[in-house]
């Protein structure tokens, strides 16, 4: 029942929030909901650790509700509810800057629906259910972009929504293909997986077509290069807590779904042995690698801090797809670990960027010079996030880099090491100058001399500090996490 409980709490709260007019009440109510969701996610994770799975089927196939939450899902739901809790906590003091007060309750309503949808995508086992959750998620995600009510967010939000719907169309075609292939009896991923395992010979073309559609659809939703075109606009223009949620969490749900399609439905043996499917896997990997290069290069060219961080997300999503595309256990392990690493580091960076924009009113990177003297804590947090992105040891980004490095050495694609090295170098090239110019140079000297301090109150920075702390804590404590993911990917 736990999965249903998590989702229904969030959905009920979404409905209630639409009727709460008092902003302060709405905030308290919303935070109580996210806290409850996080607590339930912890309980659920504990249950799954001891029992292995939580499975629940309501109604009869094919039009039923089917939940199957395994170890991977426990981790991901914990990430979704946990990270969103801290981002929303940070948003309490940030939203007033960008949103009209009357919209704030709606913002939290959309956010509740979005988190519910993300958890739904991860915990449900029926294609039909997942499709619905993805749709709810798409609309809610576009909503938290558009709600800022500026011309550019409206444009970005609509672009996001239309491409997202296009992605859904592709997905739907893929799902329907599989549904008809198996004789229109089931939407369950597990059942379809069993069917394909037994009847792959003879049904190759259906599987091929379905996978192509699903890959395109999910690549659109996960912003995999070259289908990332909506991402920089949406993530760059939304309010910062939205950007953080979009980058850290929303992109990850379709990725988990895609991993399940590959491993639970089609089966990794088929993926590797069938010439067409293995080519597909290769294409995904190449797209990931191109994303790593292209995203970083575009990030280098950006003048707007949030757009830069958004392009950095394009690159980081590339890492994850590279890991998936390797088709090996180690690659998948690195990819799933990177989902966690990126969620923590990227939400920190977006919230920090939001804080600096809020305090200075400037969104341009060039205006961040000398900021280390004016906002010492905020820029220290930015430095932490940046060092993690570059992959300095002791920060979570290094663990990711290490796992990816090990996966590459283990795979057939040794040349990826060069990509990994180049990408780390590019990350350094666009993150480090910001850090350096924040503390050194003419502007820093002037700021230090003028003794301007525009730091936000520590109590407002608390959630960002916790997220930044997680960058180090998880890096040091990643041994159990690593072992658990290792155990979990055998049970997708």
């Amino acid at each position, binding site marked *: 029942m736990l999965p249903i409980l998590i989702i229904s709490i969030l959905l009920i709260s979404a409905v209630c929030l639409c009727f709460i007019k008092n902003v302060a009440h709405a905030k308290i109510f919303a935070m109580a909901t996210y806290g409850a969701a996080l607590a339930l996610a912890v309980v659920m994770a504990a249950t799954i650790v001891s029992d292995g799975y939580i499975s629940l089927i309501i109604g009869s196939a094919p039009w039923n509700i089917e939940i199957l939450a395994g170890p991977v899902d426990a981790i991901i739901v914990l990430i979704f509810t946990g990270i969103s809790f801290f981002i929303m906590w940070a948003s309490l003091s940030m939203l007033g800057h960008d949103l009209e007060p009357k919209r704030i309750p709606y913002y939290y309503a959309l956010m509740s629906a979005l988190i519910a949808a993300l958890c739904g995508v991860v915990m449900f086992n029926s294609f039909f259910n997942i499709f619905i959750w993805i749709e709810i998620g798409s609309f809610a995600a576009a909503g938290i972009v558009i709600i800022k009510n500026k011309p550019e967010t409206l444009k970005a939000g609509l672009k996001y929504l239309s491409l997202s719907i296009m992605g859904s169309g592709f997905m739907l075609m893929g799902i329907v293909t599989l549904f008809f292939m198996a004789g229109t009896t089931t939407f369950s991923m597990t059942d379809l997986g069993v069917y394909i395992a037994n009847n792959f010979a003879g049904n190759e073309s259906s599987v091929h077509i379905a996978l192509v559609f699903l890959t395109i659809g999910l690549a659109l939703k996960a912003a995999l290069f070259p289908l990332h075109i909506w991402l920089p606009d949406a993530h760059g223009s939304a309010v910062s807590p939205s950007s953080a949620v979009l980058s850290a969490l929303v992109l990850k749900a379709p990725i988990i779904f895609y991993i399940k399609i590959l491993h639970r439905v089609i089966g990794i043996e088929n993926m590797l042995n069938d010439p067409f499917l293995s080519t597909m896997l290769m294409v995904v990997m190449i797209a990931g690698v191109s994303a790593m290069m292209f995203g970083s290069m575009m990030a280098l060219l950006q003048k707007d801090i949030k757009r830069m961080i958004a392009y950095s997300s394009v690159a980081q999503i590339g890492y994850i797809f590279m890991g998936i595309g390797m088709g090996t256990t180690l690659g998948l392990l690195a990819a799933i670990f990177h989902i966690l690493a990126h969620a923590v580091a990227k939400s920190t960076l977006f919230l920090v960027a939001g804080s600096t924009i809020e305090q200075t009113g400037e969104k341009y990177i060039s205006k961040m010079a000398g900021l280390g003297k004016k906002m010492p804590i905020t820029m220290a947090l930015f430095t932490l996030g940046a*060092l993690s992105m*570059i992959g*300095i*040891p*002791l920060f979570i980004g290094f*663990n990711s*880099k*290490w796992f990816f*490095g*090990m996966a*590459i*050495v*283990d795979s057939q694609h040794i040349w990826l*090491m060069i990509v*990994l*090295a180049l990408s*780390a*170098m590019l990350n*350094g090239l666009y993150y*480090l*100058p910001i850090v*350096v110019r924040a*503390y*050194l*140079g003419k502007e*820093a*000297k002037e700021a*230090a001399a003028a003794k301007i301090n525009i730091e936000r109150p520590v109590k407002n920075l608390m959630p960002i500090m916790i997220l930044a702390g997680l960058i180090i804590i998880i890096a*040091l404590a*990643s*041994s159990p996490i*690593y072992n658990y993911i290792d155990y979990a990917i055998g049970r997708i």
Partner: protein
Amino acid sequence: MNILLVLPILLPILAGAILPKLKGVNLKTFVTAVMAINTALVVLIVSLGDISIRLLSITPQLSLFLQVDNLSRFFILLAAGLWLLVTFYTFGYIKADDRQAGFYRYYLLSYGVIIGATLSGNLVTLYLFYEFMTLFTYPLVTYNGDKAAIKAGNKVLVYSFFGAGLTLAAMFFAARFGMTFDFVAGGTLDMAAVAGSESLALFLFFVAFIGFGVKAYIFPLFDWVPSAYPEVPSPAAALFSGVVSKVAILAILRLTLYVFGADFIMGTWVQNVLLVLTITTVFLGSMSAFREKLFKRRLAYSSVSQLSYIMFGIVLLSPVALLGSMLHVVAHGVIKVVLFLAAGAMIQQTGKTMVDDFKGAGKSMPITLWCFTLGSIALIGIPPTLGFLSKWYLAVGGLATTAPALGMLGAGMLLISALLTGGYLIPIFAGAFFPGYKFDYTKLVKNEPKKFITIPLIILAALALLFGIFPGILMNFIDSISAMLF
């Protein structure tokens, strides 16, 4: 008991972290107290015996492991000793302005991670401290805060990260051979696992060596040195040359003799290529120093060549050459600190930066110039200084090697380089003491720097001489290290 190993690393790091927040505490007193306590801690753990502690283990290869062996003792004492003495010098050198706290913060942070590097028990831990060394020394490089300093700092950063990246990539591949990267005398390479891909393993060793070599100024990756050193405050320059580069040497020693092992590398193309590279660097460094007119850059180029003496000795892979190398680690460590500190004092007192600007300085600041002279003589390698002894063993090692042609070339190059060293150092102090009959002595005024500056200089210069006269303890200690290795 083993947890004690963490203390000398954590104490300076924590002290550095809180330092700018301290109100009402005298900065110098605080730094002195931290350095004193930490030196005591270092002495304590050095005398505790071979202890080790595994702090964290994420995967068998990815773990934080600290240990004390004789090699760590050797380097930790060198690093802690030099850092302590230079601390007093900084009290006389660093101006008491609002950036002072920033300097000492990173001074202590760098000290902590360098102590950490010397205590590292595996390659991953060493890599970790190595990266942090780059990060924490960056604010010291850019201390002047002007455009040139930031540019130099960025160049250092790019080169250092590039080098560390090479090492990391090599580690990824080497992990495939089932290496745990823990340091064991003689190496941990499992020949059975490597069988069939020896050439790959050799290449990995080469890449990792070059990666660490960036910070030990190996050709062709020393281009950042002449850009960086003139910008760095002199005490920091002294420590970069005397200690930071020695951490790179420690890393190379660990990589060569404690991870891959001498037997594996002996007589291969890698050994020959590295010999050629180090010999080239010796020559290029000395030659560039000889032609350079900017004082601190001349000393920086000099370090380039001297560090390659050390690497040359390591790559020869024999006990005698290693003895020479390790003696030269001490010799160059102490001497180059003396030279940079003296140079810093001369530059600060006169405001001049070129080598020809110090005519007659021997009369106005005799103590500084005498220390500089003593350091120069030791670096050239005139007996009975330590510089003579180390080069002697390096040359003997070069002549008695399995790669006779390159060994002989190297020994010859040591001689040429010694002459060049004389050529670029002697004119400075000769001109300072004997400025020529046309020199106008009436303009000279007493210009000796503060006691904080002269006393560490005298101690260090005396050490350079004393180690040369009484090298017995050092040599026995080094023999105890190499006995385990060959």
